């Protein structure tokens, strides 16, 4: 769902109650409409992508960094290396091959990332809070995120908003976004031969942000129930709000049923 193709308000089904996490996952899944090849990260991206494959993007090919292309998981994978992503897949390859030929070779349309900290230009920290050598909190680190940010044609981010996560200045830049601005980022991408064009959307528990021409994120959609006050109180800079800010259509009954019955019956991600 792009900012330019807005749907009318919530359908009848949206009368059903839903959690903020459910709204976030549904919104992220809908963004994948029209995409072909998606590199799936652990956790929230995993459930969002699996929902998209069952709804708006049935032809979506899932790439897991563990070495799977064309996965058809019969259940929600418990991790990005769950055996259910292997059985029935199109191809299973070494990680060397996955990162070399699929990702770095430019075959991934969307890389889906989470983040502990993000700044207004989509630069991402998943390494440390505090100084690198003496962190107050040691985070997981890059995994494949650094190479996804550089080599996937575009990057989607999914994360909960908070004053600790949406910050003016990230403590460590694990994965580059639009750097100091779109102009600088485009020059560096061109000079470095990057195939990626950087972040295009950030989906949170409050709304949907797209990136403007200058490389800064702008709130285009506010989730039902969320307010601009919520948005401003969970962000470390003065956010840019779209003039035609709209309300995200609520999850449909089908989307909720898929999440609750098929993808996350235990409610691990969607509580």
């Amino acid at each position, binding site marked *: 769902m792009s900012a330019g193709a807005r749907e009318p308000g919530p359908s009848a089904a949206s009368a059903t109650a839903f959690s903020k996490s459910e709204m976030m996952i549904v919104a992220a899944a809908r963004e994948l409409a029209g995409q072909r090849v998606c590199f799936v990260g*652990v*956790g929230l991206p*995993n459930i969002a992508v699996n929902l998209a494959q069952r709804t708006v993007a049935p032809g979506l090919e899932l790439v897991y*960094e*563990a*070495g*799977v292309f064309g996965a058809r998981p019969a259940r929600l994978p*418990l*991790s*990005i*290396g*769950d*055996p259910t992503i*292997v*059985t*029935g897949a199109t191809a*299973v*390859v*070494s*990680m*060397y091959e996955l*990162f*070399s030929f699929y*990702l*770095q070779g430019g075959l991934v349309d969307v890389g889906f990332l989470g983040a502990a900290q993000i700044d207004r230009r989509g630069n991402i920290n998943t*390494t440390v809070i505090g100084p*690198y050598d003496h*962190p*107050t*909190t*040691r*985070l*997981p*680190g*890059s*995994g*494949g*995120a*650094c*190479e996804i940010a*550089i*080599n996937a044609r575009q990057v989607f981010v999914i994360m909960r908003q908070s004053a600790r996560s949406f910050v003016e200045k990230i403590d*460590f*830049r*694990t*994965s*580059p976004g639009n*750097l100091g601005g779109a102009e600088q980022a485009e020059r*560096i991408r061109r*000079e*470095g*031969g*990057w195939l990626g064009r950087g972040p295009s959307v950030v989906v949170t528990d409050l709304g949907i942000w797209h990136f403007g021409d200058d490389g800064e994120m702008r709130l285009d959609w506010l989730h039902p129930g969320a307010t601009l006050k919520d948005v401003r109180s969970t962000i470390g800079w003065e956010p840019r709000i779209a003039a035609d800010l709209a309300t995200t259509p609520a999850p449909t009954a089908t989307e909720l049923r898929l999440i609750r019955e098929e993808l996350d019956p235990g409610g691990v991600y969607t509580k």
Partner: protein
Amino acid sequence: MSTSKVATMHDAVADLVRNGDTVAIEGFTHLISFAAGHEIIRQRKRDLTLARLTPDLIYDQMIAGGVARKLIFSWLGNPGVGGLGSIRRRIETGEPAPLEVEEYSHFGMVGRYTAGAANLPFFPIRSYFESDLPVANPRIREIESPYGDGKIFAVPPLKPDVTIVHAQRADAAGNTQVWGLLGCQKEAAFAAERVIVVVEELVDEAVIRADPNRTIIPGLIVDAVVVEPFGAHPSYVQGAYDRDNRFYLDWDAITRDEAATQQWLRDWVYDLDGRAAYIDRLGAARIASLKPGSAPSGVVDYGDYR
């Protein structure tokens, strides 16, 4: 023609893992040799440098067991669940002892093993641009293309003293076959000075030779073959058993608490004499619950040419 390399886990670890070694137990979410990790704890190896893309529960347990002084990695966590307390405490507080870290991205780690396996002085990757990782780790370096089209990045070779991998099957000479996720076990094994293969099943050489495209590690580079069914629990083996997710969830509470972690090590590692006792303690019902249905591969014909 081929001498048997079959050994007990005790002997393989005693003979081939030495204090101060760089040890890589590889296997990306799939085929993680918990059995070898526990034996290393049990034998109280010391001052190891542990290399692995995803340190995972097994390195959390080993580091809690005090075997390591350094960690080389790219993603630190309990996949899909949370953090690894023993490792985080060592890094964040330096207690009970500091833990040196050397950090890459996944592709950087794969490139390091690849350079080690291929006797290359570096491996080039199109990553790390505008990331702080090369600042934090100066072993990640820029390299200029000799064709005048700009710079990319290089990582240095990683050559473990010992690489340990779990696999579905091998013959007594160490010819090893894997299906499902392949991770970077092949590269990590070829890069190593010594290789221990732990298998679900020891098979006749004829089984290996009937399907040579499935071989990922040749016996040529293998020093010991250890037969240890369910040796990858709580991780999984494609076709044999599922990940024991309950264990991963349970670990989250244990790892947050140093005393609980040490108690777990006593109950499940130090007080047991090996993997058979661990499996026994786990119980037949739990093991049975992890058994998947069947999904056979089909057969291909290589043809008999004489």
